[in-house]
């Protein structure tokens, strides 16, 4: 049987090459993400640093680990998704070959053995290549992390020998798993299908597609409800999970959408070519759905992620604007409170210094668990004058000595609790005096003015005349109007969002682009005879290419439609989480990102479709029509 696998392999190489590429890149991506994650998790802080520097590096690694954890999850998901859809597609493409085998006496089990044998072969080749390709991918990923400052500079990811086993296991496992489901279906191919022309008998929306599609759809709805219920920082990873399940659901249900898109498409592209393209879309539902799948993944993740982070950022901006009651914000390198208060035109000033410390929670037998928290040391009276300063219980005015006020994101504390802390040069316990409402923009904790360290700080200033007060303050540090300060915060946040997106998804999304090319090539490999028939019927080569191009535009439309549906689901989940947390009604739709992604997908699919059609129509048609085998 393996020899049989080998000879089909030799014969159908474009299809299998596509499958190998998908396994190879999937393995490279997973391997690189895993090695980078493990390297970050085991990175040692170099000795001889000050406590502050050491803490900054430690926090940097913690941030990198959580980012890389998400990257790894995404890499796994996209790899499994792309590989399994590629393999399922290759199996569907060979329905007739398989029926022929059944006709010559192959049992169902033998068909499965053949397909799984092929998957093994492809998995082994793909994994071996993937391990090599993974090395440069890892370098790129590390470079991205350090240049975006998600990991301390000097961070490098190292090779581990055990990764060979993991990568081989991933590649082969994913390939075989991807083919298992498809092979069960393929084994049910009836021998008679060898005698009929392809497609008619192959029902695309199978019972299992329905069941799993609806199952994942229901799961996604549940997750989205959970996202809005959980809120806060946990909502972002959860909403990415919701994108996973939504994408899976839509990929399974995609064949239902193909005719829906094909119909209006036929109206737009009138004329004989449009008609032909529309007919091809309908008959090639499986092909259309397979090509649309990676497009959907790309759109769903990029638009979904950009939309959720954009929504969070916009909500933060609105929240800060709502909270701040100041006119000017002054940033300085050290304490200058008296001189700020003495400046002309200043009526109120709140001195605020950032404090990073660890909060301990009792983890039972494991002793204390310490978590890093960013807080702000303030004076309650002047803070209340320049901020909305709402509390849910307790009193902010009690904030003096060893005390804190906390938001729910700092943990489950009640007024009067004693909070164990590691605070440089400070007490070992802080008493909770007030509970603050949930916030997106921070700070998570307010500390008493007695805990205010030396070093950089900001002053929120109210002035009778902001313009008149500015020159006096400008001598002390950098001064901005509140509006300008909020804008700058917003810009910085958006830059970070973009960087996070690139670091998190850049590689995976490149992978989906290659998967698109792959799907187009695999789809075209089976259509030489069809193209030839069209040309014998009287279409010029240009018209055949034009039809294929029109089809590819429609396929992109299908992918984009489904991707946007998945993304919108995620964004709505995030928006409702934001509403529950801070009571703001915000949705930010990333139009420019959406436009860019659609344009890229369109160009990639259209160009590869035109090129493959050109190459598939190079042979004079009559030769292909005559020779069916």
């Amino acid at each position, binding site marked *: *049987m393996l020899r*049989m696998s080998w*000879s*089909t392999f*030799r*014969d*159908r190489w474009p299809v299998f090459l596509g499958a190998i590429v998908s396994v190879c890149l999937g393995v490279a991506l997973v391997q690189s993400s895993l090695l980078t994650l493990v390297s970050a998790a085991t990175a040692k802080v170099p000795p001889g640093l000050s406590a502050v520097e050491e803490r900054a590096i430690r926090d940097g690694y913690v941030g990198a680990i959580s980012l890389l954890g998400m990257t790894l999850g995404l890499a796994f998901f996209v790899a499994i998704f792309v590989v399994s859809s590629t393999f399922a597609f290759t199996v569907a493409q060979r329905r007739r*070959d398989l029926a*022929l*085998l*059944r*006709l*010559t*006496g*192959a*049992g*169902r*089990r*033998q068909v499965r*053995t053949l397909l799984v044998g092929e998957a093994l072969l492809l998995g082994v080749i793909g994994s071996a290549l993937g391990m090599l390709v993974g090395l440069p991918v890892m370098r790129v990923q590390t470079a991205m992390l350090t240049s975006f400052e998600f990991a301390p500079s000097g961070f490098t990811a190292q090779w581990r020998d055990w990764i060979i086993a993991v990568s081989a296991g991933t590649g082969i496992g994913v390939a075989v798993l991807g083919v298992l489901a498809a092979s069960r279906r393929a084994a049910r191919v*009836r*021998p*008679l299908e*060898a*005698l009929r022309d392809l497609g008619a008998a192959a029902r695309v929306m199978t019972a299992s597609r329905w069941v799993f599609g609806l199952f994942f759809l229901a799961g996604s709805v549940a997750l989205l409800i959970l996202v809005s219920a959980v809120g806060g920082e946990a909502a972002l990873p959860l909403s990415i999970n919701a994108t996973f399940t939504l994408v899976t659901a839509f990929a399974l249900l995609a064949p239902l959408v193909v005719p829906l898109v094909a119909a209006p498409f036929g109206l737009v592209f009138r004329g004989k070519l449009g008609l032909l393209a529309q007919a091809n879309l309908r008959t090639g539902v499986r092909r259309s759905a397979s090509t649309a799948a990676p497009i959907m993944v790309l759109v769903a993740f990029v638009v979904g992620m950009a939309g959720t982070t954009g929504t969070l950022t916009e909500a933060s901006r609105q929240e800060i604007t709502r909270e701040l009651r100041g006119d000017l914000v002054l940033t300085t390198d050290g304490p200058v409170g008296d001189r700020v208060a003495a400046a002309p035109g200043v009526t109120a000033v709140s001195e605020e210094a950032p404090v990073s410390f660890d909060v301990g929670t009792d983890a039972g037998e494991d002793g204390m668990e310490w978590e890093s928290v960013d807080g702000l040391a303030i004076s309650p009276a002047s803070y209340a004058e320049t901020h909305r300063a709402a509390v849910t219980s307790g009193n902010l005015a009690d904030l003096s000595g060893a005390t804190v006020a906390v938001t729910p994101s700092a943990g489950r504390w009640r007024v009067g609790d004693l909070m164990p802390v590691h605070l440089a040069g400070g007490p070992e316990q802080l008493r909770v005096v007030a509970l603050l409402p949930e916030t997106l923009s921070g700070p998570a904790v307010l500390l008493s003015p007695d805990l205010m360290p030396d070093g950089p700080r900001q002053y929120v200033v109210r002035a009778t005349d902001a313009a008149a007060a500015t020159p006096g303050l400008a001598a002390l540090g950098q001064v901005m109007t509140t509006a300008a300060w909020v804008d700058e915060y917003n810009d910085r946040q958006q830059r970070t969002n973009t960087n996070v997106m690139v670091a998190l998804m850049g590689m995976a999304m490149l992978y989906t682009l290659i998967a698109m090319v792959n799907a187009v090539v695999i789809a075209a490999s089976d259509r030489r005879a069809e193209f030839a028939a069209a040309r014998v019927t009287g279409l010029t080569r240009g018209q055949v290419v034009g039809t294929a191009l029109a089809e590819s535009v429609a396929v992109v439309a299908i992918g984009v439609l489904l991707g946007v549906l998945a993304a919108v689901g995620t964004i709505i989940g995030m928006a409702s989480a934001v509403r529950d947390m801070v009571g703001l009604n915000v949705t930010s739709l990333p139009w420019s990102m959406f436009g860019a992604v659609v344009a890229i997908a369109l160009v990639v699919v259209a160009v590869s479709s035109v090129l493959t059609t050109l190459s598939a129509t190079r042979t004079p048609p009559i030769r292909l029509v005559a*020779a*069916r*085998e």
Partner: protein
Amino acid sequence: MDTQTRQLPAEPPVTTAPAVELQAVTRVYGARTAEVRALDDVDIAFRAGSWTAVMGPSGSGKSTLLHCAAGLERVSAGRVRIAGQDITDASDAELTRLRRTVVGFVFQSFNLIGSLSAEQNVAMPLRLAGRRPKRREVREVLASVGLADRAGHRPAELSGGQQQRVAIARAMVTRPAVLFADEPTGALDTRTARTVLSMLRAMVDTSGQTIVMVTHDPAAAAAADRVVFLGDGRLVDSLERPTTREVADRLARWEE
């Protein structure tokens, strides 16, 4: 891998029991509203060691008859027996075994596996049956269809007639009790078709092969021992020892 090997029928059955028998077979396609009766209460038996041609206009049900008789399609009503075995309700595994040992197929489009050489194509049914085919055995079958020197060629490197002969060799390698042929000469030119037909004739005459063949070509039908005519899913006529002219005349009458 299914390793169960059935005993091959060593010799063609000597009894007068038919090789294939259809009893009151009806085959209905489509749902209630668009119901098509492809076969309507057909009774027919194909004698062992005989060659029968099935004819009829397009849509008369001749291909359906072949598919039902060969166990490729389930019947809606009635019973089908091949080589004494009732296959009406046979499981997929049983039908697979049947295809490996009891029946062989030849089609208009030769349906060879493009990636395999002629020799590998011919050996495929034996491999699928879990046997390790002997090289000599396969070569002999190829030689019997006059392709001893083409064993290593792939289908794309063979002419249409040669491809069909490879397909016949593949069908015959398991020494099936019945060979089912669907328009075996449909894609061949007249001269090549004649070669293929005389090869089938020789198989019937010398080794007592049973052949059931669907065709629309009177010349092909005239090579058979008997022609049966189908119209609207029913048997309407038959001819023993037909000539091309007789067949063409009957056909013209039934197609009016």
